């Protein structure tokens, strides 16, 4: 079972919820940080990293001695990563998406595969949980290729030893966020009861709805703000599956690098209940899937 912890707005508590869920999860679990631009989960789970590898994207390298300047590569490239100016072939590897089209289309074999460093993938263990994260190289513009590499490693880890997965997703609702949640069985939408929280919750709900996954809202800093998030959830049929109260002690625990289940027994219980709720959401989906399959 894969649980994705997402939110439209940043800073609502995705990492807080992810770390807390991992700490109470009662089955083998892989804590996975897919927010590769600003990964933070490791700061709270403090994993022992057993291995770090660099991830690369395949980009073209030009051999001008072979180039006849036919410009088929430049015509194909949709990302302005390669261009032919008169009798000069120029590549812009930082613009390349790694589709490999130019390498295949060149009739002269003037382009070969080089690499661009995307960032790092690290894995290890954090207490009882397995841990996996990606970290985008500063200056690298594209997070989706590194996210794909992290997901590749995640699939290997799942194949090795079956485990549940808790994904700390990137903020927003554009391509990286959707890619982080698209393989999940359950999506948690972490929000706060403020106008910003509400607006971005709506964006996230609408963006993820077409995926057809069960979604539940986790309201963080409950009590501070207004009731509009609650109204939206009840009108649009999003179940509120946990409310984490606004409490300066929680903010201080977070600032101290602690997982919030350490703050109080009440919070420990709250997160355990959330975990149970998430499990039952996933089970219901599995049942529905079986029912649909039988129906078909």
């Amino acid at each position: 079972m894969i649980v994705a912890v997402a939110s439209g707005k940043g800073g609502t508590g995705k990492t807080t919820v992810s770390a807390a869920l991992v700490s109470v999860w009662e089955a083998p679990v892989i804590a996975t940080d897919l927010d590769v631009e600003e990964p933070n989960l490791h700061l709270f789970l403090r994993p022992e990293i057993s291995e770090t590898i660099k991830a690369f994207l395949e980009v073209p390298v030009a051999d001008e001695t072979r180039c006849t300047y036919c410009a088929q590569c430049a015509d194909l490239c949709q990302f302005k990563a390669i261009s032919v100016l008169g009798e000069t072939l120029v590549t812009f590897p930082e613009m390349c998406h790694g589709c490999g089209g130019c390498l295949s289309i060149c009739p002269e074999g003037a382009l070969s595969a080089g690499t661009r460093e995307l960032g790092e993938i690290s894995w290890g263990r954090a207490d009882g949980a397995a841990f996996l994260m990606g970290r985008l190289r500063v200056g690298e513009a594209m997070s989706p290729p590194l996210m794909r590499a992290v997901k590749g490693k995640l699939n290997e880890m799942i194949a090795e030893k079956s485990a549940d997965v808790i994904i700390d997703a990137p903020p927003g609702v554009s391509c990286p966020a959707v890619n982080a949640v698209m393989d999940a069985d359950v999506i948690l939408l972490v929000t706060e009861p403020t106008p910003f929280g509400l607006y971005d919750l709506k964006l996230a709900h609408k963006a993820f709805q077409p995926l057809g996954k069960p979604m539940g809202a986790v309201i963080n800093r409950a009590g501070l703000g207004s009731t509009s998030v609650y109204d939206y959830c009840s009108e649009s049929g999003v179940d509120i599956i946990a409310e984490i109260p606004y409490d300066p002690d929680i903010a201080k625990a977070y600032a101290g690098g602690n997982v919030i289940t350490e703050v109080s027994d009440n919070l420990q219980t709250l997160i355990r209940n959330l975990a149970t709720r998430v499990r039952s959401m996933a089970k219901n989906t599995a049942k529905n899937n079986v029912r649909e399959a039988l129906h078909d």
Partner: protein
Amino acid sequence: MIEIVVLSGKGGTGKTSLTGAFAHLSSNRVVCDLDVDAPDLHLLLDPSTISAQEFRSGHEAVIRPEICENCGECIERCRFEAILPAVPCPSVNPLKCEGCKVCVAFCPVNAVDFPEKLCGHWFVSKTRFGWMVHAQLLPAEENSGRLVALLRQQARELAKEKGFNMILSDGPPGIGCPVISSLSGTSLAVIVTEPTPSGRHDLERIAELCEHFKIPAGVIINKCDLHEGHTRHIESFCLEKGLKVLGALPHDTVVTHAMVAKQTVTEYSHNDFSDKVKQIWIRTKEMGEGLEKN
């Protein structure tokens, strides 16, 4: 033209609340929301749209079943796992399609169409604080930075036309493409951080990004009383890296109350917190003007 962009790396540190207050405290400038993925500034500034435009960028593969012979060439060639085997023809997952055109170019029977994609909308609006340029990407679209670049271009043109010499922008979170697009060639990056492990970690990365692109940066420490140790560390980090600390703000629920009232915090309250925000704005503006002179 002085371009000030408010960034943070980590989301939720207070970028938008502070940009909103700066918009209230300033004049003769264009305000711009460069977080086109999850924009929030309009919730404080309540813009009235003067003009709305479609934003089209990139293409997507669409296979025509009446022509496709289901040879599987496209499936094999797609590096993004966006095409899966299906009957009568392979199916393209638009969420994974990057619009690279490889399947179009290599289809032996030319069965793949490649229509342009509508990715979002952008707006020129008027607010109670003056002109604003903003956008909304459609869900699940690539946040490519192209829309960010377009907004900045529009803001510059509008500022020139109105005789303003400043653009004040609310930036996106992260350090990827949209952030790079917000930063490149800007006069000043204002980084809002908080004294938490995430705040510190993400400050270091965004500061490195600013250094990489040689953009001068100032730092605002929000919720500075949350953890004294981290606040001290942030201050010494800034000193070491030559980043100007523009000011520190305590954790104050007045920011949330102002947001609920759909006002900027400096409009909503005249307390000590608002005074501190005003001082920070004066220092930010001075820093921007100083950089422009040099």
